[in-house]
């Protein structure tokens, strides 16, 4: 699994989207599956819009979760993005 480049801009792949905000449990919908999203994973996915770079997502999440170790936050995000990319849920632009 390769580590995503910090300057690339992740975007949800075609056929993948978040369910509606009004729905209680937020999930990432994709062909034949759905991923439940908790607080941090939702924060990450909402920024996979083709505008935020990987670096920006890391910085913003480090601020949001300021009690967590910044290095750990970065590591978790990079791993999460790489997994989603491998599952074809994300493209890096």
């Amino acid at each position, binding site marked *: 699994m*390769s580590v995503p480049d910090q300057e690339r801009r992740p975007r949800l792949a075609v*056929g993948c*989207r978040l*369910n509606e905000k009004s729905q209680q449990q937020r999930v990432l919908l*994709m062909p*034949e599956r759905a991923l439940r999203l908790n607080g941090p994973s939702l924060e990450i996915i909402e920024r996979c819009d083709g505008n935020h770079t990987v670096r920006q997502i890391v910085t913003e999440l480090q601020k949001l979760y300021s009690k967590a170790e910044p290095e750990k936050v970065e590591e978790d995000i990079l791993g999460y993005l790489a997994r989603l990319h491998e599952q*074809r849920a994300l493209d890096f632009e």
Partner: protein
Amino acid sequence: MNSSTPNPLALVAEVTHRCPLHCVYCSNPLELTKRENELPAAAWVRVLREAAGLGVLQVDFTGGEPLARPDLIDLVRAGRSAGLYASLITSGLPLDEKRLDELVAAGLDHFQLSFQGAHEESAAEYSGTRTHAQKLRVAEWVKRRRVGLTLNFVIHRQNLAELEDMVALAEKIGPGRVEFAHVQYYGWAFENRARLLPTREQLNRSLEIIEKAEERLRGRIRVEYVVPDYYAKYPKACMGGWGRKVLLVKPDGDVLPCHAANVLPGMKFENVQKRSLREIWQESDAFQKYRGEEWMPELCRTCDRRAQDFGGCRCQAFLLAHDAGATDPVCSKSPQRSIVDSILADTNPASSSGHDFSRAEKGLAHGVSTPEAIVPDLSAAAPPSSAWLYRPNPK
């Protein structure tokens, strides 16, 4: 009602049994619903809303061939506006670019296109129609639009020699996802099983090809694989467990826990025209019958794997062992495994005795999906090879 009943996550909407194809492994029941008994669009709209209210996240519009319904666009729109992720499980006809645009505008999220082979000639034999060229056109149209694309290759004894060509075709088209799904032996495939079940050697070779493809395509195309579970050591978690995740509504509105459940004797299914989807899901006898663990034979109830495979498939237990409440005979622990072994022995006459589960087992991790049957232009039907039992069209 049992308060621990989980919410369903997916609705399989069999909107018609009509289909332009006549696939020899169609998963539809042998007794097809007639057109005059199909639910009208207004009833489907209500079903879709009720499903979303029950917690369903995704709807698969399937059939038969869902495109055979002129009002499909209204159903897709209704699914999407109910908040569901809308997938179309299709053979790709009847379809032109204008209708595809309308489907995408209605909110279609995902288009799953079936292939019966890598080439026109073989695909024509297994589908009873010449539709391969149309599928290639449809794949290109879908690629040019903002909608997810899965290619679904249905594989079996007769077309496994083309597997590498299928991989090459998928690579050329470039969908987000490709499925190579061995036929599962229900419906028409059960009738044609002797000609569809691969040999062990074929199966092992196919796994090697798929593993290489998975490796090469990683990050570009997601590759999924469904094995023929007769070769597995443990049964599949059919539908993710009976009445746990999925419900299926037939063209006439009957609600089933899976595609094949109407083979089970004495099972009475309730209809969305008479009761709400919620009541049927939570309370109906058919959904309660094999839900949870109480129904299980001792062997399953005390097995470490019971929360993984839920005792396997009820329909397979009935079809092979004539007892829907038995451990799936595919399970190596089943006292009835010899039924499966003797079928495999007929398929592999020269091979050495004893089990060889090792490779097939790996593939099982992927899946529970039943291969979808799909499409034809009746006028262009290929001459049926007498050995096949082709799926006809309902009246």
